[in-house]
């Protein structure tokens, strides 16, 4: 499955890092878009209908990750897009709040690139072993 990913984080450094990790991971990628907060993310999604995965930080100004999740789940056009939350928070109550708002998975900072890749592939429904086979096949050519 080809990925069209939206990354949402108020830290430009974090956006840069996640984009780099995704690009170097071997995931079959068509497009990456980036937003600095929930409001920007919703705006981008108005013209990014092919988006099939969202990664969002939780702790952001203007519109935080929980508010974004609720907005996404309230809209028919974005309700089905899986959302991975990125957080420094590991407390159960906080993660539970995100899951109840509709998150599919979570990534806790700091995480290793291979852990991030595994979570993304799993959320996209791609078997990591199959992805490795495809990568090996393509590298032979």
């Amino acid at each position, binding site marked *: 499955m080809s990925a069209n990913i939206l990354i949402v984080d108020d830290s430009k*450094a974090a956006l840069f890092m996640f984009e780099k990790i995704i690009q170097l991971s071997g995931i079959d990628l068509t497009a990456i878009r980036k937003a600095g907060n929930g409001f920007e993310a919703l705006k981008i999604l108005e013209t990014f209908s092919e988006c099939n995965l969202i990664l969002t930080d939780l702790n952001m100004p203007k519109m935080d990750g929980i508010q974004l999740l609720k907005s996404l789940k309230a809209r028919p056009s974005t309700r089905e897009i899986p959302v991975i939350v990125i957080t420094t928070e590991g407390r159960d109550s906080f993660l539970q709040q995100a899951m109840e708002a509709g998150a599919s998975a979570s990534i806790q900072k700091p995480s290793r690139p291979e852990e991030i890749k595994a979570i993304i592939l799993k959320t996209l429904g791609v078997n990591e072993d199959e992805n490795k086979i495809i990568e090996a096949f393509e590298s032979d050519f």
Partner: protein
Amino acid sequence: MKTRLLKLSKVISDVFTDMFFLFLQEPAADMKPGEGLWQRVDIAVSGEEPFQLHCYFADSTAQLMAENYLGLNSEELNMEMVQDIIKEAVNVITGNLLNQMNNDSVLGIPQYWGAVDKLDSIEKENFIDYLVEEELLRVVLSDPE
């Protein structure tokens, strides 16, 4: 506050190692801050046990953190990226600290405060100093303002 400082110390070491590939050392007891500027980042935690964290990064330390984290060399970095990195560091440190506190404290948004040239002017009791590549890093824990 003392217990929190101890937990904070462990968290800071882990974050610097895992995120920035930098190992923190304890400065000599008589070490005084040198000349130069420090970049200050603040973050507030609200809720049951509110507190604030003020982190002071030497210019060279902030630059090195950005280079290591982003995998870029110094020519590829700008001031905005470096400030962003140290804000992210404070965000991750505080978030990881809260993970060890079994309460409903709420993490604030890290704020870049600006540059300071005198660490000695800080009159706070609860701080930890580290040595990062020969430069001082200071983390101050305080009550909410």
